[in-house]
């Protein structure tokens, strides 16, 4: 199970990568593995304001539908439309080209409450 050191993590298995004033968000390798083959993705609309922990996307595998929660409060500023036509990318490259959306945090200090790779690794092994 890959858990890159460079990312931040949530308890609900999203990852987040700060890039300037925005953050790229996706689901972890653990999450894609638990879901199995992803066959459908529903992304938020650009411009939507979300609260931390608000369900804002859906990733569905053959067997199950999983809600994706906003890791921080903010505005959705971009979504990865390519995933809609090729949702299986989430299984193939969850930390790379299968990012889900970009969010501009309302408060940049809110990132401090997220887990680092050590804490996320501990969560998975607990």
């Amino acid at each position, binding site marked *: 199970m890959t858990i890159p050191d460079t990312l931040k993590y949530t308890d609900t298995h999203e990852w987040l990568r700060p890039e300037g004033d925005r953050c790229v968000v996706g689901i972890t390798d653990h999450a894609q593995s638990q879901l*199995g*083959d992803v*066959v*459908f993705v529903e992304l938020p609309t650009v411009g939507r304001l979300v609260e931390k922990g608000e369900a804002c996307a*859906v990733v*569905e*595998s*053959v*067997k199950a*539908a999983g809600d994706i929660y906003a890791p921080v409060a903010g505005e959705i500023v971009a979504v990865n439309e390519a995933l809609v036509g090729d949702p299986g990318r989430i299984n193939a490259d969850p930390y790379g080209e299968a990012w889900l959306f970009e969010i501009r945090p309302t408060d940049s200090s809110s990132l401090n409450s997220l887990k680092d790779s050590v804490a996320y690794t501990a969560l998975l092994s607990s």
Partner: protein
Amino acid sequence: MPEALRRTPLFNAQATLGARFVPFGGWEMPVQFSGILEEHRVVRSAAGIFDISHMGQLRVCGTGAADWLDSLLTNAIKKLRPGLSQYTFLLNDQGGVIDDLIVYQTDSDEFLLVINAAVAARDIEWLRSHMPTTGVVIEDLSPTSAALALQGPAAPAIFAAAFDATCPGRRTIQRFVWEGLYFSAAGTGYTGEAGCELFCAGKDVEKLFARLLAAGASHGIKPCGLGARDTLRLEMAYPLNGRDLLPTRSPVEADLALFVSATKDAVYPGRMVVESHLKKGPPSLLTALILEAGAPPPRAGYSVLAEGEKISDLTSGALSPTLGLGLCLSYLPPHFSNLGTQLEIEIRGRRFPAKTVAKPFYNPQK
């Protein structure tokens, strides 16, 4: 405390092959190995092998066995001959489905009943409570037996290569001996593909499983789990007991009147209700619906709407790996079940157009 899950004799062999296990009908069964989509596709294009040892196996024998089974099950046992099988139902007194099963006639006075895991104990109790005093013996083979399903267009060739014998034809059952191991194989399955189901002693199943995997290697055979089994059966519109078949719905409502004999003499439990559904028409009909391309995957429990009003729920739903469309089964009032009826499925508060279609959704024989 829930009862501990049971494991089949293939548990360790499947764990070694990378199976991910889930609880199913009281058993710890593989849901997938390499992935549901890949396993689904390999069954449609080459062959897959499934552990179906969780299914109950009952031997019913004796001079009164045929008449007794005829008096309990909906199909006509008298249509059978040794070496043939039939799909049939065990009903409650209200005509609802307790279980759907296959009865194999293995000898003149001997039958093998293959029943669903989740209701096996209930079936056996029901059968025993309806036993005649003489002439019939029931033996529950399940504690010492196992079963495999070999399914796919390459399955007959793989069977032949593995055992130097011809794979049994559709609905037939035969006994085989291979390297001192005895097993039966039948031309039945739950995927719509060619192939067979093997019934054997639990102690022999690992060896037969390994033999079939080795014989099928050049065809690309893969071990498959319940995830692919579910999408494969739904493409065929085969019902799943407990989801699509229910104690509150008759087999006529399930659109399976073909497996109900209207002409036999025996009065099986529930026959009055079944006859009334046959004559007057059933109050509901298990109907196949498809969503348009791009809609989210349908799932059991989602609402079906007609002109904005909820008319039913889905009993099964999945995105078809073969067709790329959402497939659904739902008990609808019969006037909504005509082919081409436009309805809607509600998914997370949004409504998506769906229309009723003929069964099966997909025909692998074409």
